[in-house]
C-alpha cells in the first residue's frame, strides 16, 4: 500500500469509529470501536492485528489473575519490550534504506507503550474495574493506533463512561481534523517537501548556512507532519467523545531543554517520566541517572542504534546540566525585570532551539568519533 492509501484507510476507519462511538447502545460501543480498529490493522498488517490481539488478551488476563504482583509486572514488561526490540532489530535495515524487507508491524511502537502503561497502572492498583471489551476499545481505537498520542487508560475509561453529546467538543474535533490535514497535506507534503527546499538552498549558500538550512528543514517538517497526524488523531477522538492528551505545545519557544521535552511529543515524554524516570529514581536515588536513562529509552524507542543512544544521552545530559544551572542561578534570573529579562528570555529560547536543532549533528559527529567512521 502507498502512504496515501494508508492515510486514507486511517481516515476512513477513524470516521467509522466515530459512528461506532455514538450510534449503537453504550455497551456495544467499545466492542465496535475495537472491531473497526481490528479491521484497519487486518487490512494494513495482519501480523500487527495478531500481535495486538494476543497482547490485549494476555495483558488483560495477567491483570485479572495477578493483580499487583511485581513478578508479573516485570515478566509482562520484559515480554512486551523483547517483542518490540526483536521487531525493531529485524526492521532496522529496511528502515535505514539499506536492504531487508521486514517492516515494523503497523502501530507496534505505540501500542507496546500502551500495554506497558496498562500493566504498570494495574500493578499500582490505579485501574478501575473494567471489561475486556472496554480494554479492547482502548487498545484498538483506530485514530490513535498508528501515531499516538499515547492515551492513558483511566482517561479513556472516564470519557467512555461519562460520554455525553457535546456540540462544542464535536465542532472542535472537526476543526482539529481539518487543521491536521492542512498541516500534513498542504504544509508538510507540498510546501515543505516540494516548494521550500529550493528556497532554503538559495538562502543558505554554503558552509554554516547549509547546516542551518538542513537542520531547520528537518525539524520543521518533522514538527508539521507529526503534529498534523496528532491533530487528526486528537480530533477524531474528540468527535468520538474522548479528550485525548495533547502531543505538542509550541515546542520551538521552549526556554530550556527540560521545558522543550514538556512541549514536544508530550505523551511519550510523560510516559518515560512515569515508567522509566520514576522507577529508576526510586531504585538509584539519583536524579541524573533517572533523567539520562529515561532520555536514552526515549531515544532507543525511535531507533535501536548507537546514534539514538547518544542522542538520548545528549538530551539527558542537557537536562541535568540545565537543572544544576537552574538550581544555582534560577532564582536570580527569575528576579530580572524589564529589558534584561526580555533579553535573557530571548537568549534562553535561542540557546534551547540551537541545542535541539543541532542535536543530530553533534551526536552523529560523536558516533563517528567513537566508531572511527
Amino acid at each position, binding site marked *: 500500500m*502507498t*502512504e*496515501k492509501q*494508508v*492515510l486514507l484507510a*486511517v481516515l476512513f476507519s477513524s470516521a467509522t469509529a466515530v459512528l461506532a462511538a455514538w450510534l449503537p447502545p453504550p455497551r456495544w460501543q467499545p466492542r465496535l470501536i475495537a472491531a473497526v480498529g481490528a479491521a484497519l490493522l487486518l487490512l494494513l498488517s495482519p501480523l500487527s492485528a495478531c500481535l495486538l490481539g494476543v497482547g490485549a488478551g494476555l495483558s488483560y488476563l495477567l491483570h485479572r489473575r495477578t493483580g499487583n504482583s511485581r513478578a508479573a509486572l516485570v515478566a509482562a514488561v520484559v515480554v512486551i519490550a523483547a517483542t518490540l526490540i526483536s521487531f525493531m532489530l529485524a526492521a532496522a535495515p529496511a*528502515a535505514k534504506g539499506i536492504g531487508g524487507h521486514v*517492516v*515494523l508491524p*503497523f*502501530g*507496534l*511502537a*505505540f501500542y507496546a507503550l500502551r500495554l506497558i502503561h496498562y500493566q504498570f497502572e494495574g500493578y499500582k492498583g490505579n485501574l478501575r474495574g473494567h471489561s475486556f471489551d472496554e480494554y479492547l476499545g482502548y487498545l484498538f481505537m483506530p485514530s490513535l493506533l*498508528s*501515531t499516538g498520542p499515547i492515551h492513558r487508560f483511566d482517561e479513556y475509561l472516564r470519557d467512555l463512561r461519562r460520554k455525553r453529546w457535546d456540540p462544542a467538543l464535536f465542532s472542535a474535533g*472537526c*476543526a482539529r481534523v*481539518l*487543521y491536521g*490535514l*492542512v498541516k*500534513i*497535506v*498542504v504544509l*508538510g*507534503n*507540498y510546501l*515543505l*517537501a*516540494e516548494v521550500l527546499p529550493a528556497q532554503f538552498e538559495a538562502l543558505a549558500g554554503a558552509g554554516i548556512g547549509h547546516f542551518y538550512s538542513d537542520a531547520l528543514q528537518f525539524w520543521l*517538517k*518533522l514538527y508539521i*507532519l*507529526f503534529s498534523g*497526524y496528532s491533530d487528526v488523531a486528537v480530533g477524531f477522538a474528540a468527535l468520538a467523545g474522548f479528550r485525548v492528551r495533547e502531543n505538542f505545545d509550541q515546542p520551538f519557544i521552549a526556554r530550556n531543554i527540560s521545558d522543550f521535552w514538556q512541549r514536544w511529543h508530550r505523551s511519550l515524554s510523560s510516559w518515560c517520566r512515569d515508567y522509566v524516570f520514576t522507577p529508576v529514581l526510586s531504585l538509584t536515588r539519583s536524579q541524573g541517572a533517572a533523567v539520562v536513562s529515561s532520555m536514552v529509552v526515549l531515544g532507543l524507542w*525511535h531507533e535501536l542504534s548507537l546514534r539514538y543512544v547518544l542522542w538520548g544521552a545528549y538530551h539527558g545530559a542537557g537536562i541535568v546540566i540545565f537543572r544544576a544551572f537552574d538550581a544555582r542561578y534560577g532564582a536570580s534570573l527569575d528576579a530580572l525585570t524589564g529589558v534584561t529579562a526580555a533579553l535573557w528570555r530571548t537568549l534562553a529560547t535561542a540557546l534551547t532551539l540551537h541545542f535541539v536543532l543541532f542535536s543530530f549533528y553533534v551526536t552523529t559527529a560523536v558516533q563517528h568519533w567513537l566508531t572511527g567512521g
Partner: protein
Amino acid sequence: MYTLLCAHLPRPLVHALYAVWYAALLLLVYYFFDRQPAGFYYMHR
C-alpha cells in the same frame, strides 16, 4: 478567536466567515491530497 470575532461582529456573519474559512481549507486539502506523502516511516509504525 470565535469569542473575539463575536464581540465585534454579528454572530451570523461570524458563522458565515467560519464556514468560508473551513470550506477554503477543505478545498486546499482536496486539491493537494493527490500528492504522495513525504514518506515519514517514523509517523506510523
